[in-house]
C-alpha cells in the first residue's frame, strides 16, 4: 500500500471513455447521415446538430488528456480543468439526448451510456482531487 494517490478506477474509466467515445462519435455521425437521407431533415435543423457533435469531439480530446495527466501526476489543477470541461460535455450530451431533431432509440442508448460514464467519471475525479489536495 504505497502512497499512490492516483486513482486506478478513474484511469480505467478514462481509457474506456476514450475508446467508447470514438465509437460514439462515429455511430452518431453515421446516424445523422442516415436520418438526413431517410427523413425530412432541412439544413437549418441539421447544422446545429452537427455543430454540437463536432464541438463535443473537440472538447473531448483536451478533457481526456487533462484527466490522464492530472491523475498520473497527481496534480489537482489539470484534473479540475478536466472536470470543468466534463460539465460542457455533459450539457452537449444532454442536448443530443433530448433536443436533437430526431432522437432514435439508438441515440437514446448511446447518449445514456455516455452520460452515465461522465457521471461516474466526475464522481471519481472529485474523490481524486480530494485525495490530492489533502
Amino acid at each position, binding site marked *: 500500500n504505497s502512497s499512490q494517490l492516483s486513482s486506478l478506477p478513474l484511469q480505467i474509466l478514462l481509457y474506456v471513455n476514450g475508446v467508447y467515445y470514438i465509437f460514439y462519435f462515429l455511430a452518431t455521425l453515421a*446516424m445523422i447521415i*442516415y436520418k438526413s437521407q431517410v*427523413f*425530412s431533415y432541412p439544413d437549418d*435543423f441539421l447544422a446545429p446538430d452537427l455543430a454540437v457533435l463536432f464541438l463535443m469531439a473537440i472538447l473531448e480530446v483536451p478533457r481526456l488528456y487533462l484527466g490522464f495527466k492530472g491523475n498520473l501526476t497527481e496534480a489537482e489543477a489539470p484534473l479540475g480543468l478536466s472536470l470543468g470541461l466534463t460539465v460542457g460535455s455533459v450539457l452537449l450530451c444532454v442536448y443530443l439526448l*433530448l*433536443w*436533437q*431533431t*430526431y*432522437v*432514435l*432509440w*439508438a*441515440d*437514446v*442508448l448511446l447518449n445514456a451510456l455516455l452520460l452515465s460514464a461522465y457521471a461516474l467519471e466526475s464522481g471519481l475525479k472529485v474523490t481524486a482531487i480530494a485525495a490530492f489536495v489533502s
Partner: protein
Amino acid sequence: PSNTRDAAQARVRSAPSPATDVARLCVCDLLVAQCDTNCCCDPDCSAEDFALFTACSVPVVTGDSQLCSQKAAVYSLDVEANPPERIFKLIDQVNPSIFCIHATNYKQALYLKSPEIPTAENFDQLLDKFGGATFSAEPDSWNLDTDAQNPPEANETSRYEYGVPVQTEDAFLRLPSPVVSSWCSDANPAGFLVNQATKCIRSVSVEKCDSIQALSMLFYINSSILASVFQVNITVQSIVVQSLNGMRTLLSSSDVLRLPMVLDDLCINAVLGVNYHITHTDTGEIIEAAAAFVLGAISKEALSIEQSFEISFTQENTQPVPLSGNPGYVVGLPVRAGFQPQGYPFPAAFLFASLALSSNKHSQLTILHSTSTQDCLAAQGARAPVLFGYNMISGCKLRITAAMKCQPLAQTLLDVLKGQSFPEFVASFGNSQVQDVLDWVPITQLLISEQMIFHTLQSSCQIPVSLGIEVKWTKYGSLVNPQARIVNVTATITTTTLKQLPPGRERIIPITSSVVFTDISSPAEPSYKAWPTINIKLPFDFFYPFV
C-alpha cells in the same frame, strides 16, 4: 362588410389542418352520411350494418410506423358471434427496430408540408422561389429566347397564299356579297389572288343615309392591309359619280373624300360600287392597294340599292391580263394570242423583243361566229373566242352574183374568215408572260388551193372558202397533274376558183371555219423496277492454300 371580407380572407389564407387522431381517421369512408360497405371504421354504420359485413377492408389505421411507439386503431369482425359484430381496439404499436424514432423536435417531420397560401405580401417571394425553370412543368418555358417567337409571325403576314383571306388591321378585307338571299353581308373576306365580282342589295333610308356605314367611302378604305413589316393603305384610285338617270362622270380629283349627305330629297355621295385593285409581288407580298368608287344619289322613295363590288389582283410590273390557266391551259378558257410589235422585221430580232399583248378580247384568237342571217357579208365583225379544248365549227353562206369582182371579194372573205387582227403568236401555257418570248408559239399559215388537186394552174383568182385552225397540244409535267401545253398551231386556208357566172345568175357557197384541238402527247410508258440481283462475292483469299 370589410370585417366579413377580412374574415373570409383569413380563412382562405390557411389550409385546413391535417387530421392526426387515429381513432377518427377512416380511409374507406367515402359516402357522406351513408354506410360504406365493409368499412369497419365508418362512423355512419350502425350495428345492423356491421352484422352484414363479410370482412374489414381497412383492418388497422396507424400513424407513421417509424415511431417507436404509436397508437393504432384495429378493426376486426367477430364472425363467431351471432349476429357478427365489429371490434374496435385502440392499441399501442411498438416498432422493435433500434432505429425507430423515439422523439422528434421538428414539428413537420412526419407530416406533409402545408403549402403556403399566396397572398399579396408573399407572392413575389413565392414567385422567386418556385417560378424558376426547375419548378416549371412545361419544357417550353425553359427556352428563354423570346425573340424566336417573332420571326414566324412576320413571315405569316408577309406572304399570302392563294385563297388566304387578306388581313387588315382589325380583321379581314371585306367584300360584301349576297349570302343565302340577295341582301349584302359584310362578312365575306377577300381571298388572295381570288378575283371576285359580287352584286348585292342593301336596305337604305334617305333620312339616315349619312349614318349608314356601308354607304360611305370611309368604310371601305379606312383599315390598312397587313403586309410584311409595314401596312399598306388603301388609296382612292378614281371616283365616278353616277347621276339619277344613270349617266356617269369621272371626277378629275380623287383626293377629296366624299361622304354621304342629305341634299334636298336625295342622299348624295352614296357608294354604289367599289372596285379594289391589289398589286402584289411574285412571292405573294402585297405592295399596293387601290379602290375605285362609283358614287351615286339615292332618291327618297328608294328603300334599297344595289351595290356591286369587285376585286382583282395584279402582279407588279405586269399587265393585268386574265390567265387561261396556271400553268397549263384550262379547258374552256380562251386561247391567248398576241402580235409581234412593228419594226422588228428580222426573225432573229424577235428573240430580244417582247410581244405586244392586248387585253381586248377581240384580238385574241377568234373564229367566225355564226349569225342567224347566215350571210357572210352582212354579219361582218361577229367573232367568238377560241376556247381551249372546244372544237368549234362555224360558217356562213356567201351569195355570189355576176357583178362581184374577184379580188375585193377574196379580200373581204379573208377578213370574214380571219377577222380584223389575226394574231401571229399563241401562248403555249395559260400563264405565259409577254416578256418570255420563247413561251409563245408562232401560227403557221398554210394556203391550199382546191384546184391544185387536178394539177392545173388556173389563172383565175382564188377565193378563200374555209379556214381550219388545228391546235396541237401535249400533256406537260407530272403524270398525276398533267398541264396542257400548246405546241403547234396551224391555220389552213383553202381557196377555190371563182368561176365567172353568167349574168343574172347567182350562186351560194358555204364558207366554214373550224378549230380542232389535237392531243399529241405520247402515252406514258410503264417502267418496271429492275430485277433484284444477287450479289455474292467470295473473299479474295477463299482458296488460300491453292491459289
